[in-house]
């Protein structure tokens, strides 16, 4: 693996907690790497295991389900 490897991460975030947490990180001006793309869902109960597999299939290097 080269030193320039930048993983692509998909995050499924619950609207009520983790997504709000991601907003709070912004309000608090926390800095984090820009590799993550957040997909908002109304509840992590909505995350079908297939979503995670699909994300990997489409080329994600990591999937974060947070809620």
């Amino acid at each position, binding site marked *: 693996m080269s030193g320039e490897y930048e993983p692509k991460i*998909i995050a499924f975030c619950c609207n009520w907690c983790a997504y709000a947490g991601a907003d709070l990180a*912004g309000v*608090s001006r926390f800095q*984090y790497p*820009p590799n993550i*793309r957040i997909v908002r869902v*109304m509840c992590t109960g909505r995350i079908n295991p297939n979503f995670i597999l699909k*994300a990997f299939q489409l080329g994600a290097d990591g999937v974060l389900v947070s809620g």
Partner: protein
Amino acid sequence: MVTFTLNGRQVEAEEGSTILQVAESHNIKIPTLCNHKALEPAGLCRLCTVELFDGRRTRFVTSCNYPVRKGIEVKTDSEEVIRHRKMIVELLLARCPNNDFVKNLAAEFGIEAPRFKLGDDHCILCGLCVRVCERMGIRAIDFSGRGTETEVATPFKVFTDACATCGACEFLCPTGYIKVSDITRKEVRPILSEFDEGLAGRKPIYVPYAQAIPNIPAIDRSVCSHFINKGCKICADICPAGAIDHTQQDEEVEIEVGAVVLATGFKSFDPSQYDTYNYAHHPNVVTSMEFERILSAGGPFGGHLMRPSDHKEPRKIAWLQCVGSRAINPCDKGYCSSVCCMYAIKEAVIAREHSKEPLDCAIFFMDMRTHGKEFDQYYNRAREGGVRFVRCRVHSIDPMVESEGLQLRYVTEDGRVETEEFDMVVLSVGLQTPPDVADLAEKMGIELDHYKFARTGSFAPVSTSSPGIYVCGALQGPKDIPFSVMEASAAAGAAASGLARARHSLVKEKTFPEERDVSAEPLRIGVFVCNCGINIGAVVRVPEVADYAKTLPNVVYVQENLFSCSQDAIEQLIGVIKQQDLNRVVVASCSPRTHEPLFQETLRSSGLNKYLFEQANIRDQCSWVHSNDPDAATEKAKDLVRMAVSRASLIEPLPMPSVSVTPAALVVGGGVAGMVCALTMAQQGFKAHIVEEKERLGGQALKLNKTWKGESIPEYLSKLIDEVTGHENIEVHLNAKLKEVSGFIGNFKTTIALNGTGEVRELEHGVVVLATGAHSIKPDEYLYGKNDRVFRWHELDEAWESDLVKNAGSAVFIQCVGSREPERPHCSKICCTFSVQKAVELKKRNPDIDVYILYRDMRTYGEREDLYREARALGVIFIRYDLENKPVVTETEGGALKVTVTDPILGRPITLEPDFITLATAIYTRGAEELASLFKVPLSQDNFFLEVHMKLRPVDFAVDGVFVCGMAHFPKPIEESIAQAQAAAARAATILAQKRIDVEGVVSTVDQALCRGCGKCVEVCPYGAPELIELREGVKVSQIREAMCKGCGACAVACPTGAAAIRHFTDTQVLTMVEAALGG
């Protein structure tokens, strides 16, 4: 607009802008020392020199004050330009060879040693200080001297009184040369942040605190330079929205109202007057409010636990309780502030969580008053987790000589004198009404009590002495957040009862144009990219993102906005949607959590279904978190816009269903809480059914005699029962039990069965209030049930006039019987006050009687502390016991009682021979499980009903339309039950007052053709929204009751056939974003 060439590229710029400004907007960096956006450019440092060709000749000009002109060619980094700049920096380094700022600057330009004669100055004569001082309207300093003699100085180079100590010069000086202390002898006083308790500073223009409403800056005229010296107004220049108007005046506004609610809150006690605590003189003695700010992530230390004196992380912290509470001599605050025990424990627990190293926390207290719901469990956990609790009132705090620590001397329970050093001490300061409360009371014509809290009666706990004026929160008496929130609703309920006729009379209804049918239209997506002032635009290259959006499929219109949420931008957005026939709208701006409702309403105002909106969060989750990487942030913003557009292509209009509301309430329980709740709703014009399982109304209050304030409960109760039974809107169902419940918010159906008669009634109602009360246990200790001189607490009231009680020479009360024990860890809250009240009454009736109260912690919270003090003054003897060493009750053969208890002061057992014993037995609920399962509401560990949020929604359940009040929620005295009943009524009325309730459109749906009725969705749904219905014989399918669905989508995941789906978040609508995110 002017077109010219900048570093070989054709650029457009507004007329009048300078080369420097245009270069900056194209992310071309030009170094400058003397330029500042708040000041007129001066061209003094000459570091911003650029090469300019005007068609005839090449010149070198200062870009900061050279306006762009058509056709010029500018080079900002040609060899010649760089050579020029190096020379300037070399000269500066020769002038200031020992200044760090200049040395760093020189290093950036690769200059090590200047070739010129060295000086020893620190001023680079950039003139920022001089110009800003002038801008502030002061002119205390200026350039003096000529040529090499030029310097920044005050007139005659002496200290000047003209300086306003605003500090602007010192703030702008790049080299650190200028100091206010060199200009004036006046003292520089920082403006301390009120919200941060003076631990941090604030500016004259400031947002008072992060949660302020409205969350916009205010100008403090008393310290703003403009209002003092007529200068400055820099904020107005810089505000991109042009929102600052210094000419605004205070306005007097007259409002006609039918009721007033006073909720002015408390001011924490100032412990400066306790000189032995050294609060005023030692920075490491802080108040609990200051400590709250220290712990806060948004506080002065960013949430890092450190002590003020040296910003070191403390290893040992002490809390001293009852500072400004339960103290008459030093401060005339005889009452208990009710909240400090709990907050001190919370602070200790959180401090230990924040601390990287092990932290020793010790709380010095007299009685641990954790009488709230699940508070005792929290106390137990803190103790087991290692927080030390020391029962001692500490007399003084001594500063250490050799360190910045503090020394406490205290006496342990076994009588040893200990000396211990702490790194910091937190004073748990009490609550008091603000100093201007007397003024307010006089203006409003309301009475205050002797502690300056609003005077209220137990039976009307939120009504002041003046009709129509209500009170809630700490103005009514010291209390915590849950009770303040509850009283707030109670005050609203009480006010609404009096104003029922006027309901809806001042309502203006917002109307929307008819919704456009977009189903047959091809996709026309509009993308609006927001700069959010500079919040997004300073990091993300918004024009680039907007250009990119134009290339995305189905996007027909793209626009950049400065502030998308401003009123004019919203109006413009409505116009654009109509003109461009947009049928999907994407706004790339802030978080949908804060702004989606606003934009959705905008869509509705332009005739679109609100669900045709999608937001890309390029601020909170992009520009703010990647502010040091504009390239990556811009790329990410493009990805987020692409994801939003791809989702926007798939979203569909959704119905916005609403359900009708039956304007009636079911109140389960006919005690004081149930009756007050029903009456409060009935007075507002809503029908109320009271269902009581006993044969009469009244509940536990039937057994009680007097409130702790001395008011007669039987008198109140009979009046209340008359009022309830006589009210046309109230129907009372006695001897009745709930059988079956169905339905949801606005539309419940409940079947009740009448005991013995076999009669069944069906009630239709829009809301439910659970007010089923609680009971006291029948203990099997202390000879209860075996000796008839051992009472439970209310049995004493019943035996009050008996010879045994009347002629008794000695009485014993035993507290915490069955409460605060491992099998029932909660505090029953009302027993301490009850026993002390009874002891006082006994003593008053017969001063010769010996009364002993055996207790664990005396919890006469709030102003009830007066009663405790009175009892001691009357000679009631209080003996504390521990759970490990409980009193022992025995009887002689003749039936005489003996109580043996270890006196903690004597350290040895003593024996009492009372004529009777009263046991303060624990309060518990009976039959709560059954009701909980009928209404699908949860219970706490102690089997009391569990509200949705203990602090902020104290009478609501997670199930919409169901509420709780009274002792079913937690043990509480009658005045608190009444307040909570009024609160539940007020909350319920918010539903009953509506004809229809809008239901969220993002709900589940079941395709019944695909459903095979397996019931998996019913199993997983936490809200009971899906139900199986029989489509025809033997064929069951699932159906979603939309009013109960919260849109979580768990059913869609559980469904094996794909019949259940969640609207607006279908598989394809979610996965298209994943695809777009990864496919860019």
